[in-house]
């Protein structure tokens, strides 16, 4: 099993809300004093790939696209147990949308050559776009299933559980294929000391646009199909009315009375 996991570097989605600001001039989010992290959704994809490797062997290649990629961040999949790391790191790749990003990743995966399963996060925690995974599959002509919580490889096919609103479906799919995953796959493993040491020694392969044979006009900001007109933080109106009491029990009872008074109950 040759597996490719697409996983990116993002600003920390769990940093305190106060550290999150929008620079109106550039329409970009800035997070002061908080280092970037590997995208959580992508980390679940790494975990899902490693579980397949644990069960039936194989090779896991992590693929990240971006600029200013901190090695200690993008090497996390390696320290978790991935075998290779390929970076698409060049200013030309920057500022893209799902369309140009999926195009670059699909071209890189083609260049990698042999692959049986591609795994992506259900969406990225910065853009929340949710299109790159299915987009890569469409560009490569592969079947895809989104929001998978379990993957088994049986007789050269993938048997996956796909999350639905009230449970899950069991789907059988031919390989090669693409899946997207989220937290339902289970907690990503912690890197072991051995893994961290191995990741330190391993140098990522860095590819530029020419390496994947794509014209710069199709990549990054130049290749966008979706224009972002505005990025803003919605203002919160409303004020919270605090309900008190001499004891916590009384406060609880007072809360019920308050809700009745406000005709909420």
């Amino acid at each position, binding site marked *: 099993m040759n597996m490719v996991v697409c996983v990116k570097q993002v*600003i920390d*989605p*769990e940093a305190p*809300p106060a550290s999150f600001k*929008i620079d109106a001039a550039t329409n970009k*989010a800035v997070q002061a004093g908080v280092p970037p992290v590997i995208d959580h959704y992508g980390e679940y994809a790494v975990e899902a790939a490693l579980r397949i490797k644990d069960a039936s062997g194989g090779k896991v290649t992590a693929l990240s696209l971006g600029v200013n990629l901190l090695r200690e961040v993008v090497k996390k999949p390696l320290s978790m147990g991935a075998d290779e790391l390929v970076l698409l790191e060049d200013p030309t790749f920057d500022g893209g*949308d*799902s*369309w140009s990003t999926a195009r670059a990743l699909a071209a890189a995966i083609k260049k990698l050559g042999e692959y049986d399963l591609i795994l992506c996060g259900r*969406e990225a*925690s910065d*853009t*929340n776009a*949710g*299109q790159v995974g*299915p*987009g890569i*599959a*469409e560009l490569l002509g592969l*079947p*895809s*299933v*989104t929001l998978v919580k379990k993957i088994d490889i049986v007789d050269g096919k993938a048997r996956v559980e*796909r*999350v*639905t*609103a*009230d*449970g*899950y*479906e*069991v*789907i*059988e*799919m031919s390989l090669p294929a693409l899946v997207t995953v989220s*937290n339902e796959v289970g907690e990503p493993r912690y890197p072991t000391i051995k893994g961290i040491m191995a990741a330190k020694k391993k140098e990522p392969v860095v590819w530029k646009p020419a390496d994947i044979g794509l014209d710069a006009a199709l990549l990054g900001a130049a290749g966008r*199909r*979706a*224009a972002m*007109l*505005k*990025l803003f*933080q*919605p203002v919160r109106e*409303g004020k*919270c009315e*605090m*309900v*008190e009491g001499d004891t*916590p029990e*009384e*406060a*609880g*009872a007072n809360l*019920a009375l308050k*809700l*009745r008074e*406000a005709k*909420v*109950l």
Partner: protein
Amino acid sequence: MTEHKGVMVFCEAGNGKLSSIAAEGLGAGRKLADDLGGELNAVLIGEGVGGLAQEAIALGADKAYTIDDPALKDYRMDAYLAALEKAVKQAAPQVVVMGQTAIGRDLAPRLAFRLDCTAALDCVDLAIDPQTRRLLQTKPVYGGNARAIFTSDTDPQIATIRTKAMTPAVHDGSRKGEVINISAGIDPAAVRTAVIDRVVEAVEGIKLEDAQSVVAGGRGIGSADGFKQLEELARALKGAVGASRPPCDNGWAPETIQIGLTGKIVAPELYIAVAISGSSQHMSGCSGCKTIVAINKDPEANIFKEARFGVVGDWKKILPAFTSKVRELLAG
């Protein structure tokens, strides 16, 4: 080049009727179509969906395209994508609206890439720019910390809408419209996935998405036993129990009741958040609730910025008294 006009809404159906997201899509779609001065088309895909065409017309569609075929009984991406592509090519809409559901989020991006255009998923607002006459797609980004407005030059402009974010269309049985059947013509060999089982993880009582009151617990609940207490309150309110992510990750609550960006979106009249800090990812799933009530021991917790009423303190002491008072008030 084909001229793309009007709006097409992909209407999901289940159990022999249109689902609520279809009514929400048609509600949003009608307004967009009127603003564009174009038609509103519905498209229904599945087995036995032909009979629902009139329903879509009653909900505002001018035309209803149906692709009714046994090969479309289960949702299988390849088959549905081929069917939807056919309908979109035939109707040539400027805008395609789908639901941000298990099907919509799977299908919309593939449709976009197949047609060499773009989609915006999980939109909370859709509008037509009066100057450019292009669709403006507003969606949460950065886990709900911000919102972005997107548009595009390529047709069709595809959007999925967040559940419960749009006002559903009102049913008017006197409306007339045209029904157009399209043959599916699915090549079985081109369908690369098979649904071999479907597991429903039944939750007792009222469905979370339909409940008018939701009692949600967070990490501070601490155990599965704690959730039993939340159930008691939910029962008294004839509502349902929800959770933030940590209780689901820890197995105190089933995954199917997680609320938030990666869980369910709910919009009840009353949302009681117990021992939940109010992260942007959690609030993404409940910011449409009418009244949010928070119980949290930390007066600085973000949830108090979102709530209408709050109590600071230990839920273990506050909740039982609150529940019994609620019971008393609702009984009398």
